[in-house]
């Protein structure tokens, strides 16, 4: 297998006393990886490639992604069509590149919304507790009360399938998980000794939140936010797959997979490419999230 299996665990393992506790002598003295691995750069390279391709799609020498009949249907990869053509003779490379646009727009926009709204709510609820917490947690619980994809599905079904509605629907999805994670972490830190010390010393609440809590909670929040981008991409893919996102013939990875599924036995490649793109993109984003977390030393352990 590739080197991914070697570098996937958090890089700063030597700091975990559990390693020393349970299997003494496993690691050399003071191994402290403070660099980003090769796979991080491979992931970053893939994301850059996808982002650039999506932005420059119109300028690239690609076939029209929706033009039918320019080529024979179901061709395998060739120089003329690097990834082959689909069951209607459309160039698959072009469709994959144009499809990337949809995924990226939805992924990034919805996460920014979720981080700003959800993070703030979680911090307030977790730190102040009491009635504020009850109120915010209640609101978050209502949001979480909807199985995530179903909430998006409900909004899009009734409001109508369009890119805007899909982005809004998925953006709403990421508010609740981020708020919940931040709240849970804040509660954990709010009862720690250093926070209690600050409270005893009479430090103002706002200062405690920003100086003592936020720096501790932020890495987790950001690492979760880095995961909500790929999660949003997957959610969009699922909605697209069901035919509830941007409508064909405009390509998105989800609707390409859905079309490929109908001809799976005959032309498996048609579904393969968008599946592979989605897999690699989500994998790369997840991996970058993990590496960044390790790099900034977000500890797995307690204190």
């Amino acid at each position, binding site marked *: 297998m590739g080197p991914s299996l070697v570098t996937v*665990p958090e890089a700063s393992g030597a700091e975990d006393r559990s390693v020393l506790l349970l299997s003494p002598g496993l690691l050399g003295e003071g191994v402290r990886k403070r660099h980003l691995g090769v796979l991080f750069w491979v992931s970053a390279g893939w994301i850059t490639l996808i982002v650039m391709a999506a932005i420059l799609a119109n300028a690239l020498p690609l076939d029209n992604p929706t033009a039918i009949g320019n080529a024979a249907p179901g061709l395998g990869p060739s120089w003329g069509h690097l990834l082959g053509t689909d069951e209607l003779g459309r160039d698959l490379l072009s469709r994959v590149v144009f499809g990337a646009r949809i995924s990226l727009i939805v992924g990034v926009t919805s996460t920014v919304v979720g981080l700003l709204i959800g993070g703030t709510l979680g911090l307030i609820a977790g730190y102040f507790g009491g009635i504020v917490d*009850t109120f915010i947690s209640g609101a978050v619980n*209502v949001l979480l009360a909807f199985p995530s994809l179903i909430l998006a599905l409900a909004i899009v*079904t009734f409001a109508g399938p369009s890119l805007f509605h899909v982005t809004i629907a998925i953006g709403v999805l990421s508010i609740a998980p981020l708020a919940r994670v931040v709240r849970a972490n804040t509660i954990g830190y709010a009862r720690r000794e250093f926070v209690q010390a600050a409270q005893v010393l009479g430090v103002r609440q706002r200062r405690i939140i920003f100086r003592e809590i936020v720096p501790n909670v932020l890495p987790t929040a950001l690492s979760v936010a880095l995961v909500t981008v790929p999660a949003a991409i997957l959610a969009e893919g699922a909605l697209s797959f*069901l035919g509830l996102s941007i409508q064909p013939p405009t390509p998105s990875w989800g609707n390409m997979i859905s079309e490929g599924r109908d001809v799976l036995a005959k032309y498996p490649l048609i*579904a393969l490419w968008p599946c592979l793109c989605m897999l690699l993109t989500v994998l790369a984003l997840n991996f970058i999230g993990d590496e960044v977390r390790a790099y900034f030393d977000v500890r797995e352990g307690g204190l």
Partner: protein
Amino acid sequence: MRRFTIKLIELVVVVFFVSIFTFLLLHLLPGSPAQSILGASATPHAVDVLNKALNLDRPLPVQYVDWIGHIVRGNFGTSYVNGQPVGQAILQHLPVTLELMVLSQLIAFAAAIPLGIWAAYRKNTWVDRIATGGSFALLALPPFILALIFVYVFAVRWHLFPATGFTPLSAGLFENLRTMILPALSLALGSVAIYVRVLRSEMITVLEENFITAARAKGMPSWWILLRHAFRPATFALVTVAGVNIGYLIGGSFIVEDIFALPGVGLLTVDSIFSRDYVTVQGCILVVAIGFVVINFLVDLLYPVLDPRTRDARIGRMAVH
């Protein structure tokens, strides 16, 4: 007991808001809901009749009270596409979804618990790397891609399992499982990934605690420490995540049912969306969301049983102020 009362009130409030949201869904429809339900070709008279039937000509609060009143009595309305009572349709489709979800979770826990514990114990060894790396890759594979891979490999290529279709339990357990195993597996693998990661990182945290050092100092065997001392506190997070994960499962089961043509609530919903059967969609969403709320309520009640530290949460919180 007090905690229970608070949680119960929370449950009622959440269910109330969920019902309001679901109720308002019909009003998200562009234009008039009645027109959308009946389609563009409906006569103005038919639209008027439906407006009356759905109370759409009355003020919103009146509509809501009327709607929820019917639902409490088990009347979810009637489909305008096939004339079937929606409640009856949901009841018919529910068992398949439940079976799918239970089966997938059985698979997920059976795989994730040993893997997670082992990976935490043998951190940074090849076992850990395979478990962590594998679950990492699985997180990037949504159920619909897994399902397609399984269909292609096990149904199209090897003809081991049917690609679509469903055999009810009444036709025999084996035949039933033959149609359920690929869907359940498509749904389970994502959960395996999540549970392994959570359990591993929780176990690592717990294994850093002083009481583990104490247990080791006393010379207790590793397996005893892992299962008896470390696993229980780690299950706290696992149960939380499993509760939240049910939302992901429901979403996944919708797609998986659609792909494998399993007659569950998901397939009913998706089919209803495309036949513009909005009353049925609304009913399905309400049932699914409330089911999810109730399960999470039960998970919440489990916390103090699993983790004694949360029993004095309120005292701890008061000390902060």
